[in-house]
């Protein structure tokens, strides 16, 4: 079911990219109503997050492939500039589509995970989606400007998805109450994701909940990026090194794939028992 909705979203994005005539730096479309192609109960909450997110400065209604949607136009340049100033961010902020975030969290929930820890969480959309799906969520982001953004959204929408301004690699995960956590690693393998994931995996080696832990990795097969000899959209070597089992792969759009033919491969993995 999730893969079917994911494919519908990829198709929607492709059609949207064809007809979009605006000039904004980033854009995404969210269906207005629950439908056969998008049987989602929480669409209002997704619109609520986007409407209260200052990275978006314009929105309008547009029917795309016979699906009434709201198009949101935004700009994330100042966050990019801030991440350069700090020099500490491992990958510049470039969000996934909120509906992609929601579908990933829905999948994690269906796999039985109880908590979501969003690493390199940007504007906190994955943690937010986890929270509205009834999961415990923690949002960890090293960039203070982005954490301020998350706090402002969290306050506006009235949903606390626990924004934390911390370095995820040194963060003490024993201080939060984890039983069946799924870690989302922000950043493509080829864009700092490997470093981040390696740090997290090494950090959690001695955590007693390791055997119940899942990792969601964002990868790409775009020819613009280096391939991994063991594939898995750039993550094969890391998956092999840490003996992870691949549960599933779901392909979904992100802001940066808007004009690309290849969307993001979300690889759902877990530790071998």
């Amino acid at each position, binding site marked *: 079911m999730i893969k079917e909705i994911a494919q519908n979203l990829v198709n929607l994005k492709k059609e949207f990219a064809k007809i979009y005539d605006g000039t904004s*730096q980033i854009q995404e479309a969210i269906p207005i109503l629950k439908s056969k192609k998008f049987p989602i109960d929480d669409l209002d909450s997704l619109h609520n997050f986007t409407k209260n997110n200052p990275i978006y400065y314009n929105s309008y209604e547009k029917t795309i492939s016979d699906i009434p949607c709201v198009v949101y*136009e935004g700009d994330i*340049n100042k966050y990019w500039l801030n991440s350069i100033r700090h020099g500490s961010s491992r990958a510049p902020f470039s969000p996934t589509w909120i509906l992609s975030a929601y579908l990933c969290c829905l999948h994690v929930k269906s796999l039985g995970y109880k908590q979501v820890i969003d690493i390199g969480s940007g504007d906190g959309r994955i943690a937010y989606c986890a929270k509205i799906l009834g999961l415990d969520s923690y949002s960890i982001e090293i960039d203070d400007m982005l954490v301020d953004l998350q706090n402002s959204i969290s306050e506006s929408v009235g949903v606390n998805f626990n924004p934390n301004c911390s370095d995820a690699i040194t963060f003490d995960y024993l201080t939060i109450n984890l039983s069946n956590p799924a870690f989302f690693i922000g950043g493509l393998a080829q864009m700092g994701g490997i470093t981040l994931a390696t740090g997290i995996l090494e950090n959690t080696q001695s955590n007693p909940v390791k055997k119940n832990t899942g990792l969601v990795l964002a990868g790409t097969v775009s020819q613009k990026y280096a391939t991994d000899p063991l594939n898995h959209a750039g993550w094969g070597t890391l998956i092999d090194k840490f003996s992870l089992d691949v549960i599933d792969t779901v392909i979904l759009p992100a802001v940066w794939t808007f004009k690309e033919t290849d969307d993001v491969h979300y690889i759902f993995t877990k530790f071998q028992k």
Partner: protein
Amino acid sequence: MSSFDDISEMFRSELDKLTHLLNSTNIDSNLSPTEIVEIYYQIMNMSSMNVMLKQQLNSDDQKSLLDEIIETEKLISEKFNHTIHPQILEKLTQSIQDITANLQSSSSGQKSKEEIENEAKQYEELRQKMSTKEFVEQYGKGL
């Protein structure tokens, strides 16, 4: 394999392009990333050709070309590597600092759609200059 005359002709043609580029470029102006990349491409092209040709030239009747190659190496080393290259790097660094400061100073407050999208063009220019600077720095590391 090319004849000696073909090789000489190719060398002189590329040298003409380089000389024209160096003479026609006003280093004091803000060169565009495209202009910068064009200059460095021709410098690297010429340098590779010099290395390759020097290995192939060995007889006395090829001495005049060998002398021209040595002169070209001198031009690249003295005029470009020690004078123009540092100037380009300095200009790029200054320009990046200026654009960054300008964008940072205007980053607060409510803005219209037009203002945001115009500012996005400056960010694009900044990204282009930063990646050009990286390319120029890479060249410098090879010296």
